[in-house]
């Protein structure tokens, strides 16, 4: 009996050693001693990817908590300018980020970390036979992001680039990318223009109709730490994680594109 116990003790001790040794290289790559909690204000289109990355990050870094505040980038900027507590801001376009940069509210120059394209989404089975942007003129209700939020600006760019104008009494405006998608996925809107990543996450509730790359608009996502942060070490660690190989791999798996080198 006693011998069994001793064996168990040795086995446990060995296990702990192996565990510690195994953990060492990984933790050595991490910045030392990040702990505490931060709030990341991020564009609504980042919600699924960032939620997953937040869980991964917290698993790698015990004693850290990453909280998220997902909304339209423009709404988030208004909140941050109004003094809302946030440590990191990840935006769906560079214009909204620029508003914070010029206001001196970021700690470092923003880093572009992901890119996205737009796509048309329609009801499963494509009952309205939409094959191109021009077809959107003839369907019942088209769901677009409001012109004030990035996905709405991009959608307006795509439409004007392709010389398509849709009558305003057929357009329902979503307050962010998620709401715009929901109008098609679970509501009665016949078609919408959303990010490729949103269409991907909607699964079988919508069907996509591709917008060719030559006619599309590339959305570039910048990220930056915010000046009022009480935990800049953790905020910086999160920004590094998002741009790291592991973070980039997760973003790809949710359909985001790498940032083109020219951007």
């Amino acid at each position, binding site marked *: 009996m006693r011998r069994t116990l001793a064996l168990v003790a040795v086995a446990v001790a060995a296990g702990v050693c192996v565990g510690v040794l195994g953990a060492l290289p990984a933790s050595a790559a991490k910045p030392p001693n990040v702990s505490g909690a931060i709030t990341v204000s991020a564009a609504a289109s980042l919600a699924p990817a960032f939620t997953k990355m937040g869980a991964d990050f917290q698993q790698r870094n015990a004693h850290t908590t990453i909280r998220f505040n997902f909304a*339209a980038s*423009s*709404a988030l*900027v*208004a909140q941050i300018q109004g003094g809302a507590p946030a440590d990191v801001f990840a935006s769906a376009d560079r214009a909204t980020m620029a508003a914070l940069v010029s206001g001196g509210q970021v700690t470092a120059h923003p880093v572009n970390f992901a890119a996205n394209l737009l796509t048309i989404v329609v*009801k499963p089975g494509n009952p309205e036979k939409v094959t191109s942007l021009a077809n959107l003129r003839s369907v*019942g*209700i088209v*769901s677009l992001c*409001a*012109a*004030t*939020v990035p996905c709405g600006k991009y959608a307006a760019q795509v439409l004007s680039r392709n010389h398509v104008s849709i009558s*305003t*009494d*057929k*357009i*329902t*405006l*979503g*307050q962010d990318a998620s*709401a715009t998608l929901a*109008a098609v996925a*679970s*509501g*009665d*809107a016949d078609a919408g223009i959303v990010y490729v990543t949103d269409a991907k996450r909607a699964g079988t509730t919508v069907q996509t109709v591709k917008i060719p790359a030559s006619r599309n608009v590339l959305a570039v996502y910048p990220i930056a730490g915010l000046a009022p942060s009480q935990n800049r070490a953790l905020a910086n660690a999160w920004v590094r994680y998002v741009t790291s190989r592991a973070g980039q791999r997760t973003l790809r798996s949710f359909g985001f594109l790498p940032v083109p080198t020219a951007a």
Partner: protein
Amino acid sequence: MNRRARVPLAAILVAAVAVAFFVLPLVGLLQRAPWSSLGDDLTTSQARAAIRLSVICSLWSTALCVVFGVPLAWVLARVRFPGRSLVRALVVLPMVLPPVVGGVALLAAFQRNGGLLGEWLYDWFGVQLTFTTAGTVLAETFVAMPFLVITVEAGLRTIDQRYEDAAASLGAGRWTVFRRVTLPLVAPALYAGAALAWARALGEFGATITFAGNISGRTQTVPLAVYLLLDANRGVAIALSLVLLAVSLGVLVALRDRWFGGLRDARG
């Protein structure tokens, strides 16, 4: 008159804090209001369309609340039937339900694609409620009607039923008793309930944007316009908020003494 003296000073102080809690945000709004450009802000085409739509939809909604809510309140107050408390709870539910959830529930019932009734309405009659002005009225009615029903039901319960019995014993039919005796007696509660329902319909946001969408001139009421304009054009957003505030406050203050006072009298 010496009732006031019975309220302890501490309660008065706490009450003052509560009043400040309600007043402070309003003062903040007034302080941020773009007074100099108010006229221009309110005559933008988007603001005008939103105000017009809000007035039309809230009045339609109030009318529907009265037409359907008064008989419902009457049944709840006077007819004993099994499950009455359950029915009452269901009727009041939209008051405590987050309006967005109400909108999702309305979608499940009335949307064209897979709604319980909506699919059928569309296939048989070609009627679509989502993304229409009628859908906005429906969403507003859903959240506003409980206010009318509970106010009128309370009013009906406080009426001395002997008046109705006396009329009946003198040969008046059920309809005549309702029209000539019950309705005049319950009128203060009816006005109060209608005013509350109207104010609630006017401010409706969550169920409307979820169910009827946000289409300029068709379903974009003032609260939806305010939300959308908040980060784009804060001036117009605050100007529109002020209109909502002024109208609602004006009506509540003007009606309080006459109608709510009447209600107090009816309760004795």
